[in-house]
């Protein structure tokens, strides 16, 4: 079976000579369909760059990137745009919601941009917002939502085109403790539903939502371990934060 995402000998370097920065350095990684991977590590270790390379937002210096069986590190920007549209959903730390659009309009936007008829896009957006617990916030604009609600809108937006893989870059980085729990619980549900997830975070609690955890240091993978499927720790984390 093809991996949902696979990177081989992946490297991303900036600068040259003494100023050379190895943001990602010779990384091999594979994420199976339905698997949930969390990549942790200190700030500046290259995990966000790795995620951007996986999603085709940036091109590597060397190595290969495969998404849904398609190699994307040698393709044009146009082809990568199509791949993002059809196979990748992004969740950003800063949400990047359109301030002038309501929650439902934000969620339906990628579907509309992909050419989905407006009625169908609206129905999909409504269903997703209900699923993330924001049925009563559909007509609200981002400025009227809390941080956790904004991130749930962003997650719904990332899912609207039914992506092969959902890539989340520090999704709880800007959230308080309660909002973090809301979002992590949502990721946990997504994992249960079989959604392939790659979440980059410096928050160890994110591991509670993952099947596997990889840690990075200085651009390279330091550890890559499978997490027990039924951990008390996860339950504790997800319930403990609620208190």
């Amino acid at each position: 079976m093809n991996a949902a995402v696979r990177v081989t000998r992946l490297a991303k370097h900036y600068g040259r000579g003494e100023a050379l920065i190895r943001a990602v350095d010779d990384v091999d990684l594979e994420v199976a369909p339905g698997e949930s991977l969390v990549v942790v590590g200190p700030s500046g270790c290259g995990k966000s760059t790795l995620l951007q390379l996986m999603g085709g937002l940036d091109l590597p210096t060397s190595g290969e990137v495969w998404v849904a069986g398609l190699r994307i590190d040698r393709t044009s920007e146009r082809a990568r745009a199509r791949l993002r549209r059809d196979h990748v959903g992004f969740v950003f730390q800063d949400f990047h919601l359109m301030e002038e659009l309501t929650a439902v309009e934000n969620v339906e936007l990628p579907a509309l941009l992909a050419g989905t008829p407006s009625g169908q896009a609206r129905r999909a957006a409504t269903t997703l917002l209900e699923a993330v617990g924001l049925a009563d916030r559909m007509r609200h604009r981002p400025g009227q939502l809390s941080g956790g609600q904004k991130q749930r809108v962003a997650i719904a937006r990332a899912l609207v085109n039914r992506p092969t893989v959902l890539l989340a870059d520090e999704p709880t980085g800007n959230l308080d403790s309660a909002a973090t729990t809301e979002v992590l619980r949502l990721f946990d549900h997504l994992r249960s539903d079989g959604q392939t997830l790659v979440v980059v975070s410096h928050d160890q609690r994110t591991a509670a939502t993952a099947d596997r955890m990889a840690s990075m240091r200085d651009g390279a993978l330091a550890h890559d371990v499978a997490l027990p499927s039924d951990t008390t720790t996860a339950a504790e984390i997800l319930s403990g934060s609620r208190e």
Partner: protein
Amino acid sequence: MSRLGLGVRLAIRDLRRRATETVLLFIALAVAATTLTIGLVLHGQTDAPYALTRASTAGPDIVAALFPTPNNAVSAAGRTRLRALAERPEVASRSKPFPTTWVPIVAHGISGVAELQGRDTSPSAVDRPQVVSGRWVGPDGVVVERAFAQAMGLAVGDLVELGGNQERVVGIAVSAALPPYPQLCTIGCILDRPDWFSAEPGLVWATRHLATALASAREPLVWFEYIKLHDPGSAPAFAQPYSVGGPPSGRPQLDPWQEIAARQAEQLANERTAVVFGSTLLVILALATLVVLVGGRMSDEVRRVGMLKAAGAGPGFVAGLLLTSYLAIGLVAAVVGLASGLLLTPRLVGLSAGLLGREGTTSMTPTDAVVVVGSVLAVVMLATTLPAWRAARTSTVAALDDVGHLPRRHRLVIALSAHLPTPALLGLRLAAQRPRRAALTTLSIAVAFCAAVVVLFAQSSLQAERGNAGGPADPQVAQLHLVTTALTLLLAIMAAVNLLFVTRASAVDARRVIAVARAVGVTPTEAAAAVGLGQLLPATVGLALGWATGSALFHALSASRPAAPPTTQLAGLALITLLITIVLTAFPARLEARRPIAETLRES
């Protein structure tokens, strides 16, 4: 370092950091200052050459013309009245009466009408035309007035057909006695042939014998006598009693030299109107350019203002810094505009060939210079003060966070655009978010296209009024064509500069939206098309407005019934404008649409 020194240093560094914008803004202001200068210089342009010509050719103070009664030659009684007039005590000197008639003229395949004036071979006491090429009238040839010679393409030595006779051109001359071609007939002509009704005759001097011989029953002799008064200033009062009671019938018609000078000035009146109209539009566009530039810059500069304020600069210093940089550009542009205006005026709005005077010499009063510099600086102040003050008043924390303005929500646009393809969906929403910027695009295109429509209407009307297929060229029409074309070109350049500014500013503003859209699958081409479309929509509205306004303006300003240019010509112009708009917006749009997504999202 003093605060002033620091401010100047920061302003210079800022201008150098934004070299492209600085150059474009400089061009916009310099072009406006140039046309303003041309408009002002033109006011004093006509008097000097006419005065010089009058002095050099012993120009008359009074032109007395004795027209015959219908179907009769000038009577002996009429000639006695003319002689009696010349013997009045106010008269200092006079010429002999010169017989004059109108005959067809053909040369180099060009057909026209010549006002043939019979002259002596010896110089006259009053009106001694200055021969600028060749020599004076003799039995072997005729002399042609310089403006008419240029229109007919005549030079010394050429053969012309005058009333069926082959005559050689022996000289080209200039006189102040009668208005030069094509305004000769404003003093009086007899053109009693249907095919001559729309003709503009030119002056040809010949021997008395030839003029008399070519006179006919339909074109009988008219007698011109030129008079010098003791007091040239009293010429209008001297002529006044003779102009009472309508057209002369057997009595002299008198025209004072001031009337001839006014006719001469009319030659430049159309050009002056066009230049004043054009410079007004250019100043409006310069203002729009500034507004766009300042607005765009403020979007970029909020964080810098925050840093300045965090470092201890007060709102006054920050506002002063922003103002200083623009005022400096404005001052340099105004000076350059003054110089180029002075240089261009005689070339763009050439002196009539019918007058003496050196081309390239123009005069400007200190008041004119103050008006130009003051206008440019006022425009800069008007466009800059408010945004500069607003930026300076932004709270330091907000400026450092660079939260920017919240985009506007247009529910209808959002709902409607949901049914459109990707570029239209994004483009429409982007345009709706910045309505003032869209309005500026509309204004720029509307002003430029309005001017182009007025020019087309003017050229079409002139063609209809003065079109004389196979006849001599009309220097006024050619001159006006040159002036209006040059002005339209300048307006088009300004509109293009504005469009580039607006598109760039809009693309910078839309940077985050585009990056997010691209992250969810929008291609760079679709993103570029969206930014371009965001400008194309208001530009199309501007085209429609410009078309309607230009047409209405010309109808309102035109004294006579204007002739409309073919609709295909106007539609073609609109199409070309639209294509240019697409090309111009494509550059900044593509640049922005190809920006690395990850980098943009990190920054925003």
